[in-house]
């Protein structure tokens, strides 16, 4: 029994947070402009060709807080006649220069879109079939189970886990009631509903991590 990953989508259908645990294949970093800054350091496009820390997991999450500083803004314009280094799109360059140990074939922005697409379609299908406001809570394949918790304010918490786990909706609710409320909603530095930034911050990540690792389903 294990938990693979957590996605949070806001009401504008964009992924604002990502975290993974026992995931064998990390997604490829998103392409430039594919995702918002401050979603997850691990899958944010790297400004420079992958260096020594590409193999390890992400470094201090604090880095993501500064991602709107000059560094990122500079790489947002890869076409600009800058130093020769930036001529090719960074994502290409990175995978060729130093392929991370094991990533799935999909870039993160594509993956996030697919995850959102699948929950949206399934939910709408379920509503249309039943004709009532029926909740879609999870589905299971031979290799994983997807859990969904949707708040009335339009946030969607999605968690992927082992196919044999029980419903993890209560965990998603706990994340919403606990870390999300304390470190996102009540954090004046996190601009909610901005359409420009994710909600990643050090405390939220650490507390969510602690909460998930403390679960009995977590090995």
């Amino acid at each position: 029994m294990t938990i693979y990953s957590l996605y949070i989508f806001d009401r504008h259908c964009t992924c604002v947070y990502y975290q993974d645990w026992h995931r064998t294949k990390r997604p490829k970093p998103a392409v430039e402009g594919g995702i918002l800054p401050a979603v997850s350091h691990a899958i944010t496009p790297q400004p420079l060709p992958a260096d020594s820390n590409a193999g390890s997991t992400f470094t201090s999450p604090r880095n993501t807080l500064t991602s709107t500083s000059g560094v990122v803004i500079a790489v947002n314009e890869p076409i600009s006649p800058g130093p020769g280094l930036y001529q090719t799109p960074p994502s290409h360059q990175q995978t060729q220069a130093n392929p991370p140990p094991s990533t799935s074939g999909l870039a993160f922005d594509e993956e996030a879109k697919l995850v959102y697409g699948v929950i949206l379609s399934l939910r709408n299908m379920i509503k249309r079939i039943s004709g009532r406001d029926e909740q879609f809570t999870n589905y299971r394949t031979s290799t994983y189970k997807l859990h969904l918790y949707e708040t009335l304010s339009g946030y969607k918490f999605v968690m992927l886990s082992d196919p044999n786990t029980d419903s993890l909706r209560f965990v998603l609710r706990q994340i919403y009631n606990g870390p999300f409320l304390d470190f996102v909603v009540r954090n004046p530095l996190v601009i909610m509903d901005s359409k420009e930034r994710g909600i990643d911050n050090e405390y939220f990540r650490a507390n969510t991590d602690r909460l998930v690792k403390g679960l009995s389903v977590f090995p």
Partner: protein
Amino acid sequence: MATTSKQYKAIGDDIWKSRTEKINAELFALTYGALVVQLIQDYEDYAEVNKQLEKMGYNIGTRLIEDFLARSALGRCADFREVGEVVAKVGFKSFLNITPTVTHSQPQPSGSRPPSQANPTGSSFILTLDENPLAEFVELPEEALEGGLWFSNVLCGVLRGALEMVQMQVQAEFLSDVLKGDESTQIQVRLLKYLEEEVPVGDD
């Protein structure tokens, strides 16, 4: 309807008693008073102060709703009438420990139609505040009365912000205020429209 509104009252009481962090009411009232005074000094125009208070409230409301949803664990309201009940009996109760009286302008026939059709735009309710923690110790000077200051206008913003986050665009405004010498303090909340859920932009 009577039973459900009683249930909301119980929920509101419960949240207030067990799940709300309390602060000193006097400190709260005085802080808010100081904020309004500062705004008046900064903007020197009462209409602008009303606007700023509303804007502040809006920003508070957009976050407060998450807190509210997490603590109350309520489901979506079936119609705008129910919204009024929940706002008064659970919302106001759990955050301010007051329960305004709700007056619905259009008695809705209780049908099982989906919410979007059951509420023609223009439904509204009026919240009558018997007591107002924001206006404790407050007496408005002549100048503010003439200038048309709505001292507690932040509440209108909170209502607008919070309801917008749950897909309801509303217009909230004060109708009267005891501070202005009126008999009661009333806020009118009018439903403009239900917002559609956003769908992802097609990229291929």
